[in-house]
């Protein structure tokens, strides 16, 4: 049996499982819950449903981890790229703003 046929059969079996297990959502529903789950605003009951799917689905587990990592990486790269700004406003900027006002 080829790997791709095997993988297709596994995916079909997974689809059937997700459709038939009580309290189970499919991957697309999981996708729709993700942002609220990460923000902690998903109701408790839905958190249980979300995490139940997460336990059984390798793809969604990998996806969620990579999604979280994307957020972390972008935050840290931007924090690193920000040049330090003095607390006081540069004097020439203050003058430029006030001069423009006077015109």
């Amino acid at each position: 049996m080829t790997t791709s046929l095997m993988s297709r059969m596994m995916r079909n079996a997974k689809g059937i499982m997700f459709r038939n297990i009580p309290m189970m959502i499919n991957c697309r529903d999981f996708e729709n819950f993700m942002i609220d789950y990460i923000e902690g605003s998903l109701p408790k009951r839905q958190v249980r449903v979300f995490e139940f799917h997460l336990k059984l689905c390798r793809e969604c587990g990998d996806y969620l981890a990579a999604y979280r990592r994307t957020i972390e990486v972008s935050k840290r790269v931007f924090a690193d790229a920000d040049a330090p700004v003095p607390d006081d406003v540069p004097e020439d900027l203050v003058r430029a703003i006030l001069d423009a006002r006077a015109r």
Partner: protein
Amino acid sequence: MSEARRKQLTDDSDGELVDRVLAHSESAAETLVRRHGGWMLRVALSITRDRALAEDCVQDAFANGFSRLAGFERRSGFKTWLNRIVVNAALMKLRGRRARKESDLETLLPSFDANECRIEEPWRRVLTPEQIVGSERLRTLVLQKVDELPESYRSVLLLRDIEEMTTAEVAETLGMSPVNVKVRLHRARAALKRLLEPLMRGEGQ
């Protein structure tokens, strides 16, 4: 700076200063610029990542703010009001910048098969955030990829994830509904994940 000037910088409330600027007090205008210019410059810099451009934004924001001061409704704080103006000035500057290479968002969203099962290659090798932040080449690449996001998605991602504004604040700043902010944020993150995938998997290293 004189003692009286220093005292004014810390003592008078924004509301009092706004009233005095409206009554044509230049010293009140200067106090507002000195009080708020610093954090506004930081906000503009984090969006534009260019010092000269960020200073232009602050200048534009004050010009815009002063000219609209009479219409400032006291319901929201003065700082919130200024924040919205400087963020918009920064986003406008970015929009006006060189034509960017924008990716087609639809092609970057997650894929599902006919069974609604997610298609996602296993993550066998993953670089840590430390490895990415530690490499100048990778840091530059991440900034470039964020730049490739379509404008309305990139703005939401910058304000929500980088500036750490709340959904409600972003909605108000960009004139979108909170639901729309959430949808765009999720799509922006999903697209960025796809764009960063080769980098995060350590491919081409």
